[in-house]
């Protein structure tokens, strides 16, 4: 798997005139990598993910997966949103099966895959439950299982833990890290939580706002076997402060102008 974003611009037409959301974005994700893009609101990070998912088209530039240009949404890119992610009238099992159903997979194959991924996310016993009976954290795990059941080449996560409380968030971060190590999947995640990005990612793109650009690419060398304790190491804090300075420095300099 090789995701390549090259010279991407995105401009929105608004009543106040054109708004440049993304300017000259170049980034990539390789097989088995966990990459995060961090930025304040207005940095266009969600726009970038939507372009990669094929839900929007760039004004200029190209995005390719394994050399194939993206022309729309596709099953090779699984997406998990922050909210409203599950179909409320379907059981957990039916939610996880739904992607395969849309593609016309047999009932048996669907059930088999759904069971497998429900086990992966540890929710087998809730397969018959409705989403509203699940906690927010469990709902996001179902959404991840549903995306994985489609066997995407890359998982795109748009602030998946943004609406959760701190404790649940930390549990799910560890859960996602374990999942990534176990399955060897490629992940591109968008977040505004710097600590979350440093804890999870092997590489981080720091984005600045208005227009959204990639300010810096930082390789996080904390090993891939990370546990909560890593958050207490000086190295972890060093990374966090570096990134915070980048985000802050940019907004301060614009404030003084």
């Amino acid at each position, binding site marked *: 798997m090789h995701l390549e974003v090259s010279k991407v611009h995105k401009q929105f037409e608004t009543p106040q005139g054109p708004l440049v959301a993304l300017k000259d974005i170049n980034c990539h994700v390789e097989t088995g990598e966990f990459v995060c893009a961090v930025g304040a609101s207005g940095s266009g990070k969600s726009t970038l993910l939507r372009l990669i*998912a*094929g*839900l929007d088209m760039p004004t200029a530039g190209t995005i390719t997966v394994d050399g194939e240009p993206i022309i*729309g*949404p*596709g*099953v090779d*890119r*699984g*997406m998990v*949103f922050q*909210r*409203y*992610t599950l*179909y*409320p*009238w379907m059981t957990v099992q039916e939610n996880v099966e*739904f*992607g395969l159903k*849309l*593609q016309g997979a047999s009932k048996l194959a669907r059930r088999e895959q759904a069971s497998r991924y429900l086990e992966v996310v540890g929710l087998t016993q809730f397969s018959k439950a*409705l*989403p*509203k009976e699940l906690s927010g954290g469990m709902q996001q795990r179902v*959404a991840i299982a*549903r*995306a994985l059941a*489609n066997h995407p080449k890359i998982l*795109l996560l748009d602030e998946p833990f943004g609406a959760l409380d701190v404790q649940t968030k930390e549990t799910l971060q560890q859960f996602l890290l374990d999942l990534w190590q176990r399955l060897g999947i490629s992940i591109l995640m968008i977040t505004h939580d710097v600590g979350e990005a440093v804890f999870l990612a092997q590489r981080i793109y720091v984005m600045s706002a208005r227009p959204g650009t990639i300010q810096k690419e930082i390789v996080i060398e904390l090993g891939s076997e990370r546990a909560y304790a890593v958050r207490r190491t000086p190295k972890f804090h060093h990374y966090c402060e570096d990134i915070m300075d980048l985000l802050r420095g940019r907004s301060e300099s614009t404030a003084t102008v």
Partner: protein
Amino acid sequence: MVLSVAVPFLLWCLLSEFSIVDPRFLPTPTMVWQALERLWQEGYLLPDTLFSFGRVLAGFLLAAIVAIPLGIAMGAFASIRALMEPLIGIVRYMPAPAFTPLLLIYLGVGEAPKIALIFIGTLFFNTLMIMDAVKFVPKELIETTYTLGGNRRQVLFQVITPYVVPSIIDTLRVNMAASWNLVVVAELLAADDGLGKRIQLARQFFQTDSIFACLIVLGLIGFLLDLSLQALMRVTCKWAVK
């Protein structure tokens, strides 16, 4: 629940039984019960009820059959919405009973104008309310479906439609009450039977007890229809019921 029915009922008993209000204007509950028995024995009550009920059902179902797909289509496709919304927006403010004379001229005095009145009176509200429900389908749910490999047709039939089913049932409940109103309007103006016609005749003979009896029957049937739609909601849309 018990109180909200019991208090007005007691008040009615007091006012009528002690002749505080002239019983010719406010009949006693006993008189109303006797009127109900009389209407039943004379063989009016059941056919009248069935006629009214049949007209409501026909007009209402026809309106639903048109409004559900039309409302969903208008909610889902901007082009269809742009085409239909201005028209429906104007027509829905024309009071349906005002169409009755036209309907009588066009369709005669049979069942057709009565069913047509109910159809016209509920179609536009049904359509617009269902259209609005479609607008509230979360964008994320639709986009998730595309990223899971769904096409437009699948989004329409397997995501948008099931999502709005509870709203459709709610809409039907609201408009069921409207069609129950309209059937009486139609029958008051031109009919040989039906509960509305019975009220009309009772007025001519100053039988307030019969009018009360018919009103109670109308209320009870409306209430039962509402309860059954609520039950339908609980059975088919467990996910949307608190």
